[in-house]
């Protein structure tokens, strides 16, 4: 197991090189003047500025050399400046990452409800409850999330005005002191109640809609696995011993249900962290997804390179954690690997 982990970790830099290379090649297939794009019209009369920029990014060198310069700067934590925001990409991402983590974490916490729902559906196999839960899970995974988002906005914002839409706080509310980057937690820790209320109200609607995209899969997997486990011999033994059904489910079935379910949840979490483009764009949530959308569609090359690298890093880390979780949760895998 450790050997496997070390091998995976050693591959990480190579993967990052691969990802940045793809982004770099794509970026340079556009006939745009990078200096003009990055510095804006204002730099035309300032040759010193242009020369300094060109030198920093090696723009007077050949393309392969430019790529090496980019990698060199990257290894020093310099991702360049965003063309849109005119700030450093690292700073932009530093704001976007906690926003996305807060949204994705809340959404995945909500969709954890899918586990008991799935298990319940399996216990009530082919009964009314099973039918309802399966239907709900199907709707969740087949109805496009952007329409659900519109309906949610229409109901809770336009009609009922319960929840605001757009950004993470009401205008005029100052963000809480930075501790975790999660506005809800930070305002809770600092006792900033107005920020807490505001950030919660901004968070709930997008998180709720986002959770609908993952809850369907979680229900389906929990239900299938439970059905499978319920027919195992050792459960029949437990039943014939006269154990109560609740004890059977909780003590005997649950541990075996948990391993695949935890995997699905972690993978969904990974996909939420990297692929919330639609929801973040619709709700104007200033996270990675919206940043990726803006930099991709406005051809902000430093931005797109930075955001691809960060998202790939998150994705790879989550996958590593899933592999580790396997070993922790399932003793069979642990002994096999050792």
């Amino acid at each position: 197991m450790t050997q496997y982990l070390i091998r995976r970790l050693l591959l990480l830099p190579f993967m990052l090189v691969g990802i940045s290379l793809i982004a770099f090649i794509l970026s340079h297939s556009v006939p745009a003047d990078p200096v003009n794009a990055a510095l804006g019209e204002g730099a035309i009369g300032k040759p010193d500025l242009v020369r300094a920029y060109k030198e920093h990014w090696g723009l007077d060198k050949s393309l392969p050399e430019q790529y090496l310069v980019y990698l060199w700067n990257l290894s020093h934590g310099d991702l360049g400046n965003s063309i849109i925001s005119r700030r450093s990409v690292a700073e932009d991402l530093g704001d976007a990452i906690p926003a996305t983590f807060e949204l994705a974490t809340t959404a995945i916490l909500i969709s954890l409800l899918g586990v008991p729902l799935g298990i319940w559906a399996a216990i009530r196999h082919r009964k009314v409850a099973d039918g309802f839960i399966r239907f709900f899970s199907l709707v969740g995974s087949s109805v496009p999330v952007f329409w659900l988002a519109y309906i949610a906005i229409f109901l809770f914002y336009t009609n009922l005005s319960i929840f605001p839409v757009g950004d993470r706080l009401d205008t005029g509310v100052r963000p809480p002191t930075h501790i975790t980057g999660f506005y809800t937690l930070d305002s809770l820790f600092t006792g900033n109640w107005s920020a807490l209320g505001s950030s919660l109200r901004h968070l709930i609607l997008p998180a709720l809609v986002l959770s609908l995209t993952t809850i369907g899969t979680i229900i389906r997997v929990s239900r299938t696995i439970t059905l499978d486990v319920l027919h195992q011999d050792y459960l029949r033994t437990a039943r014939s011993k006269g154990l109560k059904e609740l004890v059977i489910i909780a003590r005997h079935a649950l541990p075996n249900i948990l391993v695949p379910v935890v995997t699905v949840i972690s993978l969904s979490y990974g996909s939420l962290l990297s692929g919330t483009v639609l929801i973040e764009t619709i709700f104007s949530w200033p996270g990675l997804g919206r940043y990726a959308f803006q930099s991709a569609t406005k051809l902000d090359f430093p931005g797109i390179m930075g955001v691809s690298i960060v998202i790939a890093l998150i994705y790879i880390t989550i996958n590593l954690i899933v592999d580790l979780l396997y070993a922790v949760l399932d003793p069979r895998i642990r002994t096999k690997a050792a």
Partner: protein
Amino acid sequence: MSTTADTPVKTPAAVTEPEASNLWRDAYRRFKKNKLAVGAFFVLVFLVFIAIFADVISPAPYDYSNLIDANQFPNSQHLLGTDSVGRDFLSRLIYGTRVSLTVGISVQLIALAIGLPLGIAAGMLGGWVDYIIMRGVEVLTSIPIWLFALFIISVWRSNGQQVGGGLLNVIVAIGLVGWVDICRLTRAQILTLREKEFVLAANAIGAKPLHIATHHLLPNALAPLIVAVTLGIPTAIFTEAGLSFLGFGINDPLPSWGKMVADSSSYIRVYWHLGLFPTLCIAVTMLTFSFVGDGLRDALDPNLKK
């Protein structure tokens, strides 16, 4: 006494000879029993029929707009109403079926064209070829398909390279990332099948690796590939809908369900049908392909054989 002894001998002769069992016949028999999958299959045939004969079925051309008729609710003239520029909504939904299915199927064809040979190469040749291909697959897996597709489409857009109202761009952009699953699956299948006795036998009589790959390994890997392709189609359709929704997929006047939902957003208060109908189309298509794909998987999986 002798008659009773005769009966068990006679019974097997009386039973009609069962048809020889093979994978496809067994699969067909199992698939037929799965009511949900069969039902979904008929819906799928219906969708394909609509897509092919869109010109004949739809009451109006998808781009014919008549501003006087704009924003109508469903009525006898326009069965599903009209959109904000007075185009018959039913016709646009019908042509939207064609666009969606074209995207879904073409993306899978591209995925097969890239993923199959690479998967075979990785599985058969092993060594550094396998190593390089699989690292490439890992790199592409870790970039979200959205980010890649959005970026590549906006690069094409700024270069003025838009083909077929953005249709070809969407297909190629999704297909360029979509092949990794096929590649991974093909490789895994080949690695498992390579250890089987019939491959050893083929090797022993001196068959060339390419011959073994195309004549012995691929036919046996076909079942899981069919399932993967069937289940890949709705994913591609969903991605197209999302891209078009964001305005980076299919361009007007070509109808895309995703874009139709996006266009409806400002009218959701009054003209609810403009968002609901394309949403239902997407949902039905998604479910249809998922049910058929799941049914195929259950039917083709020999492990479940009773």
